[in-house]
């Protein structure tokens, strides 16, 4: 397998005319040039254009949330807090959490890659409800702008978790507008999930049975189930907080017999499954990357498919592990602890199957594969530390410390974001019709990997040694580890900025891509790059299984 070959020249079975002339992409009509003008974008119902609208929005919010993180890590260089007062620091970590969770991670893969790819992978012309798809973006922007307003108007300092009675009674920051913003963004999430469920049930191309679908679609389906059944409970819990704050009535107020822990139940009933909304799509991407870049069928297709659904279901049974030290009854804690061990099993099944897929595969180390390999390692580490946290007795020691922070960043950043970037790179030729510069992409992946580990590994140690999270100051013996973490964060920042530059650059100056630069299987690679608005000239008919690569022989270039 010639790694030295440019990707424009690697051809799979279906690739045709990969070395195309520049003029071909301009004379052919596709979704990007089918119509011009801002109205054609803001009033589009084309799922591919809507995906790009989301891409622009979430990228913007990612860097806003990242800015908050920069300020936090700068502050933590010094034990006494280097640049901000604790009151401000509280606002920083709250905004970082709210923006990264609700405005970046939750929408990221579903609203960008899912919106773009679900109809293509399924062989349809669009999603089931294109106008609802557009509505979901406007709803997302409305919520996002309301949250931005909360930032500008002075921020909110309750943490992204809005715990009562701080949020209902004592906070004097912009709780209601932030909560309302989150509520609205949640509605956008529901609309996206609804669209995917109906599309996957009703619009598969002839011959595409459930078990011929690419695993990315199984992941999107499972994610959508969580979005549908979980998000409304977040909505009602935030509504109750807002109503209690507005009318000074006590639903969660102990003075009138209310239970503040009830809020936590309602909040985490959504927010735990929410973390699976953030990771499942990424796992779906990894299934696609691992197969494409080892030129091999996935090992254990059925297990991987069902594990996605299993994660979606079991994820709703474990939320109490966030409340082990909140005053929750020990018996409930026992139950939640046991169930939390169970939820790790389907995730582990995936990791085993990906690894088995890699074994004896014809591996190529293009950037998407680097991200996938990084994901597998970092997600495993994050997942294993999740088991530590699920163990009730251990959690008593590390709850509320940097151990938790490191755990979820390994999953969210080392896992979800790496999967997202891997997917963006993998499908970039399909989305933009251009190839990104491979050298820069590999360099960024490496920088990200190094920066990430330098930032977050010390945080495991810090947490275990007892440094609490959400603190603007800390005992001086923790300084070395904090400085390491902040140094890593600066490297991480560079690693995120470089792709932003070269991906934008490639849209204009990158080499033109053919329909299938990777030689991968999947209906989306049968459409031109970029696809026409209606995706396929004729509805494709599916006869082969997903990932129908030859399993024994290696591909010859």
């Amino acid at each position, binding site marked *: 397998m010639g790694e030295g070959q440019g990707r424009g020249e690697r051809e799979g079975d279906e690739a045709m005319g990969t070395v195309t002339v520049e003029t071909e992409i301009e004379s052919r009509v596709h979704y990007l040039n089918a119509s011009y003008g801002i109205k054609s974008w803001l009033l589009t119902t084309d799922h591919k254009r809507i995906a790009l609208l989301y891409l622009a929005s979430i990228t913007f919010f990612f860097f806003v949330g990242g800015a908050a993180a920069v300020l936090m890590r700068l502050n933590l260089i010094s034990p006494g807090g280097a640049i901000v007062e604790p009151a401000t620091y509280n606002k920083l970590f709250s905004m970082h959490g709210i923006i990264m969770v609700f405005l970046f991670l939750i929408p990221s893969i579903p609203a960008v890659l899912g919106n773009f790819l679900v*109809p293509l992978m399924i062989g*349809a*012309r*669009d*999603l*089931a*409800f*294109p106008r*609802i798809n557009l509505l979901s973006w406007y709803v997302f922007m409305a919520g996002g702008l309301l949250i931005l307003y909360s930032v500008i108007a002075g921020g909110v300092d309750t943490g992204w978790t809005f715990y009562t009675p701080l949020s209902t009674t004592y906070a004097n920051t912009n709780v209601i507008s932030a909560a309302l913003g989150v509520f609205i963004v949640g509605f956008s999430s*529901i609309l996206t999930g*609804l*669209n995917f*469920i*109906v599309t996957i*049930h*009703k*619009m598969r191309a002839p011959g595409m049975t459930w078990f011929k679908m690419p695993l990315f679609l199984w992941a999107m389906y499972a994610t959508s189930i969580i979005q*549908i*059944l*979980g*998000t*409304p*409970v977040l*909505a*009602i*819990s935030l*509504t*109750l907080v807002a*109503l209690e704050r*507005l*009318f*000074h*009535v*006590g*639903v969660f107020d102990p003075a*009138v*017999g*209310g*239970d503040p822990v*009830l809020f936590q*139940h*309602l909040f985490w*009933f959504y927010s735990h499954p929410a973390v699976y909304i953030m990771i499942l799509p990424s796992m779906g991407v990894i299934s696609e990357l691992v197969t494409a870049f080892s030129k091999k069928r996935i090992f254990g297709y059925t297990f991987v498919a069902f594990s996605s659904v299993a994660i979606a279901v079991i994820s709703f049974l474990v939320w109490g592990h966030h409340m082990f030290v909140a005053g929750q009854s020990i018996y409930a804690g026992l139950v939640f602890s046991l169930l939390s061990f169970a939820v790790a099993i389907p995730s582990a099944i995936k990791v085993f199957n990906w690894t088995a897929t890699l074994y004896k595969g014809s591996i190529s180390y293009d950037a998407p594969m680097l991200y996938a390999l990084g994901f597998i390692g970092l997600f495993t580490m994050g997942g294993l530390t999740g088991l530590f946290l699920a163990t009730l007795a251990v959690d008593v020691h590390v709850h509320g410390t940097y151990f938790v922070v490191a755990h979820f960043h390994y999953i969210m950043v080392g896992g979800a974001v790496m999967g997202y970037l891997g997917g963006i790179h993998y499908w970039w030729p399909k989305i933009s019709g251009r190839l990104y510069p491979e050298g820069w992409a590999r360099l960024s992946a490496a920088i990200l990997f190094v920066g990430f580990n330098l930032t977050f590994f010390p945080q495991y140690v810090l947490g275990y040694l007892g440094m609490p999270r959400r603190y603007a100051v800390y005992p001086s013996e923790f300084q070395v580890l904090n400085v390491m973490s902040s140094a890593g964060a600066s490297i991480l920042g560079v690693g995120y900025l470089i792709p932003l530059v070269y991906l934008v650059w490639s849209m204009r100056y990158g080499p033109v891509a053919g329909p299938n630069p990777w030689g991968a299987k999947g209906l989306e690679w049968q459409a031109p790059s970029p696809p026409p608005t*209606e995706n396929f000239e004729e*509805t494709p008919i599916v006869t082969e299984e997903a990932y129908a690569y030859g399993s024994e022989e290696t591909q010859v270039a």
Partner: protein
Amino acid sequence: MHSSTAALAEQFDDLQQQQEASSLGMWVFLATEVMFFGGLFTAYILYRNFYLPGFEAGSRLLNVRIGALNTAILLCSSLTMALAVRAAQLGKKGALTTFLFLTLLLGLAFVAVKLGLEWRHDYLEGFAPGVHWTFHGPDWRHIELFFVFYFFMTGIHALHMVVGVGILTALILMAGRGKFSPQRYNAVEVAGLYWHFVDIVWIFLYPLLYLIGGRY
């Protein structure tokens, strides 16, 4: 027949797929509504379990007659809505418009009774938490908590009714312009599902709020 080809949206292959998709879409949305109200019901169940005497006392302060009347109004509106869908299926434009209009009137009646009669009465009597609460007799904190739930739950329900009224208005206008036919009445069917669901929520709210007060 031009109306059937005009009725098919571009992303669908045929009318049946379109109809199934829109019904499934509404059912999935109703699942989210079950969970939305479910959070409220969970909190209510919890507090009623802990503070039964207070909640029973609060429940007894509600007017069962008016609650029962409102229940009947809503059930009537579900009947008229079902008949409206039937009229659409049969292409009977006049009947469709009439039944939609009746449903709308009944829905408005419900909201008027709820807000104009019940809420107003509770407010004037000093049973409106956070706005005008004057009762400080025995167990008053738990009674106030009951009323917090009463107002929140019926309020969010009424909000859903108002949205339904808006949808019905749009449907009546569309029906008047002849937009519906036996080949294309998805919107009426799907609006019907929503309306019936809001009725189902009230079917549970009525006994939980009005009837478990130990009125004997």
